[in-house]
């Protein structure tokens, strides 16, 4: 694959926190390139820095050192509002704890990322289209009958399905999944994974998934093993080198 197909690139990412008066390194220099249509799986033990890396790549967090490039453009030093816009337009997120807004029903939660783009004057313009799109997505994830339910009325698996629909509604260039099945029982986790697999083949979605569950390594097209803030191994087709 040629380099122009690289969608997201991280160069020399370091991240450290101050704790107890001393610097605590979490990421110690990560270089990573993700190509379009690729499914990258970050695997490693808890506390290895996987989630931090995901947050940094997804522009939720900022690195202490290093740069991130999206479609070849450096996006690390962008002002906050532009980072926010990129998060909204280019990225989608699915978190371990679903992170749905409890005051809004499944449909509204799904619509929210697109609604956030709308300005005051054109609030009602295209709102129907957004609703239709959200309904379609919720139908795809199997929640046609539960659209009007609030998160508190949904099971864990259902909540995660809403979160997936919400992440996909913006047609993101990269989908970030942070332990999407970490909080679910095996059976539900399996159904979520098969849903994600379906999504991936359906939308040819580029994604980056974080997990510490070894059973999931077969899910990605590429597996990256992170230990102690460093990439210690990388492999294709479910195998881990290093």
């Amino acid at each position: 694959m040629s380099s122009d197909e690289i969608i997201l690139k991280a160069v020399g990412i370091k991240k450290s926190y101050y704790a107890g008066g001393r610097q605590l390194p979490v990421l110690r220099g990560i270089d990573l390139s993700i190509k379009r249509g690729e499914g990258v799986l970050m695997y490693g033990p808890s506390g290895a820095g996987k989630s931090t890396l995901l947050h940094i790549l997804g522009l939720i967090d900022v690195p202490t050192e290093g740069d991130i490039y999206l479609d070849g453009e450096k996006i690390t030093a962008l002002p906050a509002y532009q980072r926010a816009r990129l998060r909204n337009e280019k990225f989608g997120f699915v978190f371990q704890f679903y992170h749905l807004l409890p005051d809004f029903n499944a449909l509204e939660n799904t619509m929210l990322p697109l609604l956030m783009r709308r300005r005051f004057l054109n609030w009602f313009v295209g709102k129907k289209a957004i609703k239709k799109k959200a309904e379609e997505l919720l139908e795809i994830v199997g929640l046609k009958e539960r659209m009007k339910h609030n998160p508190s009325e949904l099971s864990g698996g259902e909540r995660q399905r809403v979160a997936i629909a919400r992440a996909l509604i913006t047609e993101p260039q990269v989908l970030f999944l942070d332990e999407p099945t970490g909080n679910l029982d095996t059976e539900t986790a399996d159904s979520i994974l098969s849903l994600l697999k379906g999504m991936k083949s359906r939308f040819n979605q580029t994604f980056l998934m974080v997990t510490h569950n070894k059973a999931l390594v077969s899910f990605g097209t590429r597996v990256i093993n992170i230990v102690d803030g460093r990439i210690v191994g990388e492999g294709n087709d479910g195998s881990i080198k290093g």
Partner: protein
Amino acid sequence: MWRLFVALRYLKHRLTTYIATAGVAIGVMVLVIVVSVMGGFQREFHEKLRGINAHITVESYDFAIREPEPIMEAIKRVKGVAAVAPFVQNIVLVKGIYVDFGFIKGIEPDMEAEVGKLKQYLLRPDEAQIIADYESLKEYIKAYEYAIAQLEGIIKSLSHDSAQAEFAKFQLSRRRFQYEELKKRLESLTGPYQKALNRKPLSDDEVIKLFCFREGETPGVVVGIELMKHYSLKIGDEILLMTATQMNIEKVQQQKFVVLGAFKTGVFDTDFRYLYGLVDEVKRFIGVDGIGGISVRLEDYRDAERLKDSICEAVEPFEQGKSRLVVRTWMEQNKTLLQAVRMEKWLLSFIIFFIIVVAGFGIVSILTMMVAEKTRDIGIMKSLGGTTGGVLGVFLLAGVFIASVGSAIGLFLGLTFVYKINEVAGFIEKVTGYHPFPRDVYYLDKIPTEVDPLELAYVIVPTLLLSLIFALFPALRASRLDPVEALRYE
């Protein structure tokens, strides 16, 4: 717009929202009522001040206006002047059963009636008598009630069969009898009294008749109703007036005047201290040749400040040597009073505005709670692309929404109350028997109100601004939350 969408959802079905909104609403309601009622009182008060005073006066402090006609003509030529009238005024001692100071004002009744509202305040002789009798009687009855209560207390403290107790009981029964008699008389006077209060203003003929028609040679005065009551005067009684002028302070003049009639403006001081006579008779009494000044009525009293200079110019050619003509507007004449009323209104509004400040703290607390409660939501919104400004907007809008809805409800309730205030007062009287607005205290038939859109804006705009400022603190806190921290928040 999504900010409002989220903000409204956060506010929905929360008890604290309703409480905070109610707080703002109550504050705004009370302020609207106070501002409107105070405005009404101010208007009535101004009207009364203008009623007895001319819009503008041109005065000569040494009674040097010997030929008023050309000056009056010159003033009348000023555009915006409606009418003029000559007057002469001086301080007097009034001697009846007591001695008090007052002001005698000599007027030309027909011309004065055009300048001020005297015609409206004048009473026909029989009406004056009824009002004086009725109001005096009411005071007597109060005194009797007090005396009876005192006697009842004394009797309780004495032993039953003592001679003192017997005497006190006799006194009590006598007082009670007299009290009942007085009450009967008061009742019989109630109808005529109401009729006298709601009288038709005097006609021009009646005004002239009141001042000019009398028997004998004694000059006459029209007195205020309060003086009439206090001195137990009847129409036709004589009072002795004494005066001296600045130019001739050693020579005290005195003259008996016959009471021709009375007036009632509703301003106690005016109704007690002012006496009106004919300009020629008053001039003779004071011992001066010229008149003291000219009263001017304008087509619109609000032009007083503006027209003052034109009138100054018009009367300037008539100033001779040392005797100057001083032009003053009605506001200048009553400067301290007007300032006091304005100050009172401002101060009361200022104090009541603190209710809104308290309501503002309500908004702060509900938003602070909301920010704490929604910390994770804030992280979620940020991860979905919400900017710092966006999150700020959500919580600002929540605060402004509470303030806006509270203001709207408060405005509606306040205005409804203001429009129905007299019905409310009537209802309170019906239920409790206590009249919250006794007309004989305020001299007004109804609680006066004035709804001024500008003053309402003075209530609403600061309320909204204040709530915006108050909402800013929790909103800023929310917007500055680190999304990573916020997402981790449980």
